């Protein structure tokens, strides 16, 4: 229960930071997504239903203020979390390279899916925007990795067998 509460609070915190503070640390108008970096880094170190629900919940928070197609972010974040679980099963936990590269590549994939879905609504976004925002998210994920890894290894964040 404590685990769900912590993930819920952190998702809200990162959403608020994404909608406010992150805009002020933009480089050349490009800014990262702390929430996306967090869910990917958390998913790679964990698995199960909680990760899928985290993907859906974070997507919902992003969809609230998204202009078109309510559900786009929920769908993409859920799928990203699902694929991250699969990647996470075949890597050594605690190593930084694969998680941050996964974060970068899934951020680009997310951007491309959003670009194609928005095309249906006749809204256009540039690929350079997607690329540089993903690059920034990648840089942020390097900083966040250790913190999220430590969080995942906290006692109350793990489902341990009780004898």
């Amino acid at each position: 229960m404590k685990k769900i509460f912590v993930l819920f609070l952190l998702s809200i915190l990162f959403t608020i930071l994404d909608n406010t503070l992150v805009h002020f640390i933009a480089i050349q108008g490009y800014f990262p997504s702390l929430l996306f970096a967090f869910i990917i880094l958390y998913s790679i170190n964990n698995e199960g239903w909680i990760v899928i629900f985290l993907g859906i919940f974070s997507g919902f928070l992003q969809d609230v203020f998204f202009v078109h197609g309510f559900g786009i972010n929920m769908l993409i974040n859920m799928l990203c979390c699902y694929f991250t679980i699969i990647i996470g099963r075949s890597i050594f936990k605690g190593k930084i390279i694969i998680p941050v590269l996964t974060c970068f590549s899934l951020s680009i994939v997310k951007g491309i899916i959003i670009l194609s879905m928005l095309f249906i609504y006749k809204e256009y976004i540039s690929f350079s925007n997607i690329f540089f925002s993903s690059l920034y998210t990648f840089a942020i994920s390097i900083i966040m990795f250790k913190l999220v890894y430590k969080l995942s290894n906290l006692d109350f964040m793990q489902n341990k067998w009780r004898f």
Partner: protein
Amino acid sequence: MKFIKNKLTIVVVLLSVCFLVLIGISEKDTKIVKSSNAFQNGTGVILNSMQKGVYSLSRGIKDYLSFLFSFNQVKIQNEELKAQNTKLLQKAQDYDSLIKKYDSIAAMVGFEDEKSGYNYLGCEITGISGTSYLDGYIINKGTKDGVNKRMVVVCGDGLVGQITKCEANWSVIQTITNENINVACRVESTQEEGMLKGYKDENNNQMSKLTQLDENSQVQVGAVIYTSNTGAIYPKGIRVGSVLEVSEDKAKLTKTAVIEPFVDFNKLQVVFIVIPKDKTKIAY
């Protein structure tokens, strides 16, 4: 264990189908959409109340830091503004006397001012929307305050943009620097009309472009651009920006002007929604 893993995959596939249906119907006026909108609005209200404080605090810190780092520039600017202020005070006096004359003449001929046909609703910006792909601003007024989708948003410096998402207690604005927003505009000096579109230059600065200008257009650098009311969405005469550069497209036989908006989108805090008194004259 394998069964559980497969169960997870099956649930993910089923949920994906559900989300695709939700995306498909999200723009339609159905019962499910209405209830999801109410849920969105509720979440938005809670997030907005928390975001408001963080946004103001971040804005304050950024402004303070930029003031510290550009102190010399601020000093020079202050001197320039003092000189400008003296000139403007003189102009304001002339303006006051002209207004008095205008009022008396308007009363005589029964002329109705175009801008008197609108109410202006002040709103505060509570956050940024769009997850970095579609830049927009979240404001603290919605349908409960009489705001509708596609209403025009202005601030003291000029045109800001348009409402693109509207919930009961909050809305999302997309600015004129977004390439998905089109505004019919006119060049003040030559009275030529063109279509304004959002544009970002090579340094990703937020600009606009005035397209579809005639090949023989006389538009020059520095010319002021304002809205023209063609299309009946944007009221006539709202200042938009000034021409920074003019280029010629020989294939299309048109000219395009790069416009620097008067509004500094990095310093937006308070905006006004233009609400028409007579909604029959408006195309939304």
